[in-house]
């Protein structure tokens, strides 16, 4: 009886980028089945071996697949906005090989069954690897902590109350303290609720439009409070969606004090500012809100210098009926899976950071935050993306694979095109436009 040899594929003539090993050189990569069999600078420089599928990556970069720390899946409960299948298709088209979903579905992921449901649906779809956080508190009510130990055992990759910041300091303290026994991460979008009842950044534009403002203080006050609790408990804390210069400063100072804290932002916070709201454009309504130009620049610099560890998509799909409303009534959020990589590449094209550093923000660091592995090394799962970092194109929301098209980036010019996305050795996405 013969044993079937797993399929082998050689990716040749690529610019290999792996921040973990410091690799940034021309080379090749060989997959066998689900794993990386060989990888290295100069590999296959004299041609690919016999009997393998060969993919020529001339002019393209090959890097660990993007790991997205913040996606809203909408399944279960709001499948008209997004499903695990449609989000999976959108993710792989964006070069994302792993993503973690917020627990704000209906029902909320606050028990083992919810975690298992997401895992099962992801297995059925076999696109990007889909994981989920569980909520810190039952029903996202901010009062009683969930079964952090059990949920971690069943695969919850961390704990967050998602769009609802955990306001009660004592509950946050206990969540940080208790979770430290299970070496899991508590994620919080730091916004003091009593100061964030508005709908856009406070300032001149909000004043002119007659819209209630959210002060940048709402973010930094909650962040300072949380960091005091981290210091007290020794819990692992991650600040989601940092959007202000003041928050960046607080993170820097906390690290100088020796505090272990990580944070992320989303591309819209270093790409757009509050003026995007213009004349009540609901596609530019986000939470936290798009901030001032000074804040935008500070966020871009913080991504560049590593103060901000990770860039996430903050994928928030909404149907037309959720956005075609008066500004204050429209749901906040934009879709981000398919624009995460090209919008982030703008930082490289502007000379703010190297391509390798950007890959660290998109793949290596987010994986480390989740206690996972991401890298081009022998024996590792073959999860990577092949992309042309320079190819110019326009963002076209109508062509998104996501069910929802709520993006302020329509007809926005970017440089960067995903050519192939590989998950567990399988090519799950190949661009129709590879020439």
């Amino acid at each position: 009886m013969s044993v079937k040899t797993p399929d082998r594929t050689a990716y040749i003539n690529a610019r290999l980028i792996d921040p973990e090993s410091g690799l940034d050189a021309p080379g090749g990569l060989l997959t066998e089945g689900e794993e990386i069999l060989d990888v290295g600078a100069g590999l296959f420089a004299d041609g690919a071996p016999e009997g393998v599928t060969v993919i020529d990556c001339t002019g393209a970069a090959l890097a660990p697949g993007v790991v997205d720390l913040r996606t809203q899946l909408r399944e279960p409960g709001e499948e008209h906005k997004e499903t695990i299948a449609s989000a999976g298709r959108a993710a792989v088209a964006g070069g994302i090989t792993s993503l973690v979903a917020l627990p704000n579905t209906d029902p909320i992921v606050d028990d083992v069954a919810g975690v298992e449901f997401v895992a099962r649906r992801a297995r059925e779809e076999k696109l990007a690897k889909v994981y989920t956080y569980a909520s810190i508190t039952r029903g996202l009510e901010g009062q009683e902590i969930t079964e952090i130990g059990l949920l971690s055992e069943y695969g919850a990759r961390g704990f967050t109350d998602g769009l609802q910041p955990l306001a009660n300091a004592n509950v946050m303290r206990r969540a940080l303290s208790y979770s430290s026994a299970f070496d899991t991460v508590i994620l919080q979008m730091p916004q003091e609720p009593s100061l964030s009842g508005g709908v856009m950044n406070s300032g001149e534009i909000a004043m002119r439009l007659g819209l209630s403002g959210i002060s940048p203080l709402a973010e930094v006050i909650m962040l300072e409070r949380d960091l005091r609790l981290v210091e007290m408990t020794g819990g692992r804390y991650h600040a989601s969606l940092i959007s202000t210069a003041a928050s960046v400063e607080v993170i820097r100072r906390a690290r100088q004090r020796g505090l272990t804290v990580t944070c992320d932002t989303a591309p819209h916070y270093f790409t757009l500012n509050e003026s995007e709201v213009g004349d009540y454009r609901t596609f530019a309504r986000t939470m936290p809100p798009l901030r001032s130009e000074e804040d935008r620049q500070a966020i871009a610099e913080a991504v560049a210098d590593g103060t901000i560890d990770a860039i996430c998509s903050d994928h928030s799909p909404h149907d037309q009926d959720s956005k075609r409303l008066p500004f204050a009534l429209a749901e906040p959020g934009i879709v981000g899976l398919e624009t995460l990589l090209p919008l982030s590449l703008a930082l490289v094209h502007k000379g703010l950071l190297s391509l390798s550093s950007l890959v660290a923000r998109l793949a290596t660091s987010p994986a480390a935050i989740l206690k996972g592995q991401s890298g081009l090394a022998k024996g590792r799962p073959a999860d990577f993306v092949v992309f042309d970092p320079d190819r110019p194109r326009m963002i076209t929301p109508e062509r998104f694979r996501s069910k929802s098209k709520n993006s302020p980036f329509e007809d926005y010019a970017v440089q960067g095109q995903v050519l192939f996305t590989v998950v567990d050795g399988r090519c799950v996405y190949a661009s129709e436009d590879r020439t």
Partner: protein
Amino acid sequence: MCSDRPLDDSKTGYAHRHLLGIEGLQREEIATLLDLADDYARQDPRAHRPNTLLSGHTVINLFFENSTRTRTSFELAAKRLGAQVINMSVAWSSIKKGETLIDTAMTLTAMRPDVLVVRHPDSGAVKLLSEKVDCAVINGGDGSHEHPTQALLDALTIRQRKGTLQGLTVAICGDILHSRVARSNIHLLNIMGAQVRVIAPPTLMPSKIERLGVTAFHDMNQGLQDVDIVMMLRLQTERMQGSYVPSVREYFRFYGLDREKLSNAKPDALIMHPGPMNRGVEIDTEVADDIDRSVIRQQVEMGVAVRMACLDILTRGQAWEG
């Protein structure tokens, strides 16, 4: 039957399809509206001459927020021009139940009105609706954004009493933060060459308000020093619940218009209020009813004339640019 159109029909001097706000209008456009409103104000409504100017036109008053004054004023203006008027008061609760603003707009468009007058509790909602209908839209007040016809009627009242807006000093006092009346007035008065001051407690003063070209005061006595016009704003009683102000008593003590505070203004200063007044909250009865100084009743009268002018201009059917 006669068709009384006070201005030459061939050019309107107003280059927009809608009236959504004062911000962005040109000085000449405002002057055109005020001149036409002035002519309408001089017509005696009790002469009972049937006006057929808008005969066959339909005006729908679509109010998502309670209003008696503004709705009645628009209704009267439309009827005096011979239009058919439909009043629709949409309970906000039914909107919350599912029918979106866009659905409402589509439904109304199918009825083919000529003008929609819309009031809505959310800033920007009237503009959103205007993008979805194929008739002229007048903003009857949207959230904390604008209330253009109120600013126009205030301007007309001032102009009739003072002869001009140019060079006057106007103090707008009260809840500036939430006031669409204040925003529209600030824009209009600035465009027309008046000096604008705003007076409010810090909790009711929007940040960056000075970017609109106004001077901000927290002390009413200072703010009223030598002003020509004192424009009071209504204080919503629910502001007491949000820690904006501690009590009615305290608000009246520091920001209510009374004789003592009024003595800082010029001797011939006019007192205005968009109504309805909270006597003893933002204004003392004695001051509100001062027949020499208070033009509050005249504001109501000018409201009809201004709205007639707006309906007239917006139904002239020239090629629109805006």
